């Protein structure tokens, strides 16, 4: 029988490296932007405009108009290919009254705007920080509920608490890797944390139990069946019995997620990507991190128990 659990040291090292890389990405992001992940206007407040002009315009022309409205720190970037004449401008928050005037000024001083394609978003800083606090709370509550949930499901198994803690370890692992990935994309592609990122994070937390619970279920079922086998072997058997299902399920979820990333709307690409990374990490960590951790823990305590018994 192929022994997955035995080689656990290698998985721990592999994950350690991944987590180190994630932390490094967040460190670089912190050094460059002052934040481990680039935070978007949903949480900081501010405005973003996407403007599509009828013809070529220059960055300076745009900047000029924004400066007339006291928006000197506007960040002006071209979007898409040059023939699209599409620009993104980020500023501090602009009031509803100013937007109308700003657009009129742009049309008269820079060039015709395609009003059908016009998109903008403004968030007050005050609500931004409130949303950020609530987001932190939501993540905390979600994690606690999931632990409680596992603990409750496995309440008849000895040491149910350990199952919960190992799940949390796996979940933390997934979150760190997802965050690291996002930090990296923030540095490379300018991805920012928005409310969809929060949605993805919470979803990853929710799915963190999907695979682990199947393996745990099988361990619960197999433990009385193979009473004579050491725990490690029972666990390994359980993993092998369920790995087909984990991979098949994961593959299907990946098919649709990759399809959405490749063919779906551009605005949800970051959202789906972080979800994909989180879910792949989840399947991996369920089999190679959470369950082997449980083995380490159980083994440790049994050894101590035996030692006590012989003493």
């Amino acid at each position, binding site marked *: 029988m192929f022994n997955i659990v035995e080689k656990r040291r290698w998985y721990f090292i592999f994950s350690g490296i991944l987590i180190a890389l994630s932390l490094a990405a967040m460190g670089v992001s912190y050094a460059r932007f002052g934040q481990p992940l680039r935070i978007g206007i*949903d949480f900081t407040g501010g405005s973003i405009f996407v403007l599509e002009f009828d013809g070529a315009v220059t960055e300076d022309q745009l900047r000029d108009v924004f400066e007339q409205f006291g928006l000197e720190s506007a960040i002006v970037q071209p979007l898409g290919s040059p023939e699209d004449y599409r620009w993104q401008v980020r500023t501090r928050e602009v*009031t*509803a*009254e100013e*937007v*109308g005037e700003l657009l009129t000024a742009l049309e008269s001083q820079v060039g015709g705007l*395609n*009003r*059908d*394609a*016009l*998109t*903008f*978003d*403004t*968030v*007050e800083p*005050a*609500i931004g920080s*409130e*949303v950020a606090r*609530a*987001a932190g709370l*939501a993540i905390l509550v*979600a994690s606690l509920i*999931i632990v409680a*949930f596992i603990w409750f*499901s496995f309440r008849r198994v000895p040491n149910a608490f350990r199952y919960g803690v190992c799940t949390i370890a796996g979940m933390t692992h997934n979150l760190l890797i997802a965050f690291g990935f996002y930090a990296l994309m923030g540095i490379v592609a300018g991805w920012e944390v928005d*409310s*969809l990122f*929060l*949605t993805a994070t*919470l*979803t990853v937390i929710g799915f963190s*139990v*999907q695979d682990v*619970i*199947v393996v745990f*279920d099988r361990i619960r*079922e197999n433990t009385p069946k193979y009473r004579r086998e050491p725990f490690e072997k029972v666990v390994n058997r359980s993993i092998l*019995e369920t790995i*087909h*299902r984990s991979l*098949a*399920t994961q593959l*299907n*979820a990946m*098919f*649709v*997620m*990759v*399809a*959405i990333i490749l*063919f*779906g*709307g551009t*605005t*949800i690409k970051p*959202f*789906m990507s972080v979800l994909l990374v989180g879910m792949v990490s989840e399947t991996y960590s369920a089999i190679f991190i959470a369950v082997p951790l449980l083995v380490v823990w159980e083994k440790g305590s049994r050894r101590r128990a035996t030692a006590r018994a012989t003493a």
Partner: protein
Amino acid sequence: MSQSKTWRLVAIILIAVVALFVTLNINHPAWVENLLFWQPEGQRDISLRLGLDLQGGLKVLLAADPPEGQEFEASSMETARRIVESRVNSLGLTEPVVQAQGERRIIVELPGIENPEQAVETIKGTALLEFVDAGFNPVPPGTVVTTTLGGPQAAEGSVITDTSSLTATLEGEDTSDIVASTGVTETQPQASGQVYETILTGADLANVGLDRTEQNQYIIPFELNQEGAETFSQYTTSSVGQYLCIVLDKEVISCPTIREPIPGGRGSISGAFTLEEARQLAIQLRYGALPMPLRVESFNRVGATLGEQSVNRSVRAGVIGLSIVLLFMLIYYRLPGGLADVALVIYVLINLALYKLIPITLTLPGIAGFILSAGMAVDANILIFERMKEELRSGRRLGRAIEMGFDRAWPSIRDGQLSTLIICAILFVFGTNFGASIVKGFAITLALGTMVNLFTAVFTTRTFVGQVAEAAGQWLSEREWILGV
């Protein structure tokens, strides 16, 4: 074939046919639409509702902003919502949305609207209308006056008043900068130290209309309530020849002369209004002031072309993604996989039908949540089939293996689904509190999908597989490769 199993099959086919009928993009007969008793009467409709991010439009998130230290009651929030709603409805848009979000926020979605200024003006207008006694000296329009009535002094600082465009056009000069920068009371020029006596306020209005004179001028005819009519009658009788100023939010709109006593409580406001301004003024008068000031916390607009693009791309992504899933299931699990595919198609139909029936407004992340839930809907089947294969390999008979596959896989399915639903609930609460309709959209479709999945993956597939096994069990047992073993 046992009777209960036949009934199950009939029920599934019936549900699938109904779902298909609802999903199809045809003209559904009116009597069918009228069956949707849970939808408000007159708006019963079988159609897919697209969110603002898909059809384009403006979203404004408002928050109650009571003056420091002042509390407001939950009921006044509902009043505010109703007033905002009636103002928004008067804009004549198709399907605008005005919803309370949490305890102190209101979300307003205006499809097709582009100019946030106009929208915010309509929504927030805290119009306080006064008729003041100006004696024998007319006050020029646009002047800010002090009256004996307290008035909306809360309108300060970040709270933006709504009169800028009105004043601007009435005077023929741009005063909007004054309003936008600070507020009414601080910087606007005062006419004099004079305090004008308020005769009537907007509260005395019973009815407000909109009309056009023969000179093509827009006027706003009004009717006073009984008490107001009496006061008005007394006042006009004793003050013939004097000026009566109509003041909106302390700003004079016009100062007509009282030519004769007005006994019936009927009159009209005239000025150099454009149709738009006259309509907005009428709205403000009709729906009165809000019970508390509202602050714009965020607004965003999605261009219609971007929305259209998002719809097309999502449909494409969904079709491609699900086709791969269907193929994978068929190739990997053979016959049961094919049956699961049928269940998956029914799953998609039921979901789409529910979006139309409930109705659920689809957003871009909502569609993503749906596609994702469809991709994961097969998970329950996979759990069951893997289990079934194991049981077959360990030498169990086909019928028994199927039963055990379903029974043993159930706890894992249940736990997985429950944890998804818990997360959806958290996302929903979060999205609701902050008017983040995209977060909510994802949570709703994912949660709904998870629940529908319990029906299709477990009930439907089980019935299908059971039926097939019963019909061709012997033949299948000899050819287990068809079962994917």
